[in-house]
């Protein structure tokens, strides 16, 4: 009988063990072990290719816009004699680009972004280039804003279903929590004042301080714009609770009919009271509307001077290369091009959407009535034996393994109703979309027979 060994854990681990990593490094808040990402792995291992691998997995879980690539290609080739657009010749030339690392960002580029954002909103709101803070993508913009608006253990209210990446982007390094605002199909998943109040109360009951509401408009994964009345209610709610309102509008240029989109900027446009305006912040990026996710261009537009100043300084951690800014400044200021691009892009997305929704309807599958984005919100609830998360994931697994389609289950978007799936349609050719629909038809046929 001996005394138990007392392992003395000295304050700096003086026993030559493996060196420690931080909580951030070992945390799984990055969420990459979830089904949302597991599907991607399956795709990586067996990717569909029209010629070389026609029975491979079709990636319908990535919201990427390739439908208007040809417009960009033509523009870049034509309007780019001797690479002048890239800044290799002439002034402002390479030298300025190479040395420029000011976190204010190139003025010409900010002006171009402001102008582009105004165009998308049909001129219904004005954007001041000095309120634009550049970040390396919208992911960085959302994280940056979260750092600025909330302290660790505070919360942001986010309506469900929401983009799965938010769990990581808003929470991982920031230590901030997400409290869901539950929405359901009874009213097309719109945010109601009751749902807002309930989410707020849930946070308060758990002694969590709410710092803001973050919405995506148009919504991901719903593929639908937020109604003007809802936006007004939201702002009203934020004013009453004295919290912030962040509107992630990265799909604003992907609304099929421009008139159906109301930006929070339009609501704020008519307000003079600074104490109301200064709680509103908009996130935008060129990844979806312009189909340039590889460029890593995002922006925070804030009506709050303090937030603009702070965000600018913090953007040192996520600057857009001056070369990229320079390249895009001339493209985005070319109003003739952008007007044409926006218009054609909308039409093509609308056509795609109609194709997929019609195709699904013929297979007996309904979708939420959408009007924007690169995806549709499909309802397979009727196929579930049990309307539970497990039931949904089982169905998702079948679709992945049997149909070889990677789509995103609603549970990964925190949807409170089971059986909904997000299906992306803009990251593939029309042929591929047809193949995907064919697979779904065949699956539904098989099911009907049994």
């Amino acid at each position, binding site marked *: 009988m001996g005394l138990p060994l007392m392992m003395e854990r000295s*304050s*700096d*681990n003086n026993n*030559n063990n493996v*060196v420690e*990593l*931080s*909580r*951030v*490094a070992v945390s799984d808040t990055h969420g990459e072990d979830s089904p949302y990402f597991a599907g991607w792995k399956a795709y990586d291992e067996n990717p569909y290719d029209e010629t070389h691998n026609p029975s491979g997995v079709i990636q319908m879980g*990535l919201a*990427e816009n*390739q439908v208007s*690539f040809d417009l*960009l290609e033509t523009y870049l*080739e034509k309007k*780019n004699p001797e*690479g002048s657009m*890239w800044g*290799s010749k002439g002034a402002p030339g*390479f030298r300025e*680009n*190479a*040395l420029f*690392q000011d976190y204010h960002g190139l003025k010409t580029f900010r002006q171009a972004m402001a102008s582009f954002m105004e165009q998308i909103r049909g001129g219904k709101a004005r954007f001041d280039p000095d309120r634009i803070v550049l970040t*390396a993508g919208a992911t*960085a913009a959302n994280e940056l804003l979260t*750092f*600025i*608006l*909330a302290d660790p253990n505070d919360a942001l209210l986010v309506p469900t279903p929401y983009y799965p990446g938010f769990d990581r982007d808003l929470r*991982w*390094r920031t230590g901030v929590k997400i409290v869901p605002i539950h929405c359901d199909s009874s009213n097309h998943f719109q945010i109601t004042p009751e749902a807002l109040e309930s989410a707020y109360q849930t946070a*308060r009951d758990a002694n969590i301080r709410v710092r803001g509401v973050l919405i995506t408009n148009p919504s991901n994964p719903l593929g639908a714009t937020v109604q003007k009345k809802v936006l007004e209610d939201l*702002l*009203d709610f934020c*004013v*009453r*609770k*004295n919290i*912030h309102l962040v509107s992630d509008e990265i799909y604003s240029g992907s609304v099929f009919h421009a008139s159906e989109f109301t930006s929070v900027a339009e609501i704020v446009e008519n307000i003079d009271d600074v104490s*109301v305006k*200064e*709680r509103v912040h908009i996130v935008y990026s060129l990844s979806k509307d312009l189909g*340039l*996710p*590889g*460029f*890593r261009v995002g922006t925070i537009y804030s009506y709050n001077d303090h*937030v603009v100043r*702070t965000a600018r300084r*913090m953007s*040192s*951690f*996520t*600057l*857009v*290369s*001056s*070369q990229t800014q320079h390249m895009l400044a001339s493209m985005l200021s070319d109003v003739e091009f952008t007007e044409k691009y926006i218009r054609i892009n909308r039409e093509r997305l609308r056509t795609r959407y109609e194709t997929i929704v019609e195709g699904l309807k013929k297979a007996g599958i309904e979708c939420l009535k959408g009007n924007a984005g690169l995806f549709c919100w499909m309802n397979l609830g009727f196929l579930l034996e049990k309307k539970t998360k497990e039931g949904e994931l089982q169905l998702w697994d079948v679709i992945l393994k049997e149909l070889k389609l990677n789509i995103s289950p609603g549970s990964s978007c925190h949807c409170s109703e089971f059986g909904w799936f997000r299906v992306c349609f803009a990251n593939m050719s029309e042929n591929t979309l047809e193949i995907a629909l064919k697979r779904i038809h065949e699956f539904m046929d098989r099911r009907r027979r049994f």
Partner: protein
Amino acid sequence: MRLIVPLRGVIQGRGGLFVGSLIPCCLFYFLQLYLKRRRPPPSDPTELPRTSSLSNLFSRGNSIGRVRVSSRAVPVAKPSDSPYYIGLERVKTDPYDRITNTDGIMQLGLAESTLCFDLLQRWMSENLMDSIMQSDDGEFDISSIAMYKPFEGLLELRVAFADFMSRIMGGNVSFDPSNMVITAGGTPAMEVLAFCLADHGNAFLIPTPYYPGFDRDIKFRTGVELIPVHCRSSDNFTVTVSALEQALNQARKRGSKVSGILFSNPSNPVGNILSRETLHDILRFAQEKNIHVISDEIFAGSVYGDKEFVSMAEIAELGEFDKSRVHIIYGLSKDLSIPGFRAGLIYSFHEDVVNAAKKLMRFSSMSVPVQRILISLLSDVRFIEEYMKAHKQRIRDKHIRFVEGLKQLGIPCAESGGGLYCWVDMRSLLTSYSEKGELELFEKLLTVAKINATPGTACYCIEPGWFRCCFTALADEDIPVTMERIRQLAESSKS
């Protein structure tokens, strides 16, 4: 009845001290309890009553509370009180120009080189467009630059960087592309490593004097502290194990948990090249204490002295110590003069750190068109060799001129072998040998001599009187101008 009688007694002043005080206290307590129950549920003190419409709310002239930012955001927007930033801001208001503003402030506070710009410009004009627009079959394919690519950087870029780094670090060490994560500049590389290696409230030991930017890069959002390890002019400001030991012990006594050691090599602001022995000692120390080592080698290609540069990677590869504790930061802002491109990287021997950093790169990744340019640039071995040779030569020449000019004024510099600056001993110009005296000299340099040099205080140097002077943005003609201004200042301070 039972309650009322004693109450009456209290009111009438009878009942003694105990009853006289107890009963009113109890009553008061019960009154509060009663009122609390009646009060509406607790809510935000600034919450306003619900109204039916937004316009109604505003028209009623309600005073709406100002919405607040997080407490961690507050210090970020404050104007900096560090002379490092103050100096940089002042130059912006009145920058020296050889032709248009000969009385302007000479910028010696920014460690950037434009000495080989002509070479870079020529390469870009010949190759930039092709490097972005060309894909394998010669046709322009926008998907090669537009689409999502792995956030940690294209494999071809990591391969090109691995080769480049090996080349500029003397060819004695090879780098494995799978240990590498590409970042949008050295700043996020530093921050991401801090996030991965230390928790909020932990600390890194850092030899002084150190680059003032580290305060922001590390402390802003991670909450990691920097504990200075003071170095002295007697050692030419080289860190010693005994100083590290002392700093670590003091930290422990204070209850601080030290997660690692961070240092720059070549060092900034002194310009030391750390010897093989010193690097070895640092790694052994880290092994003994079971902490990390972060080597910021961003000036590795800007070595002009006789001493050869040795990367910490080389020491790690010796296999004597657990190399998973070794992490390196690199970037192209200094060696290749393209800070605007935002090209940096983390190189780590720890698989989990690489994996975590890869995932964190979604917040700071390099744009794909820029990656394509760099693949082309870094793989052009002939150009790189020509460039690096010229780069080192031109820094060396400039360094000699600058140091000689100061020597003529009786102002010595610390020994240095790398970087884009020198560590100047201006103790003879101090009116008092103190931090105050140094800051006064800084102010005089800025306003009278119109020179922005970074004072040692901004770099946490324990000995007053030292200034970092970056000379690589100076044309040869600017040097005598600078020296003359210093000479005049020296004369006036003598009188």
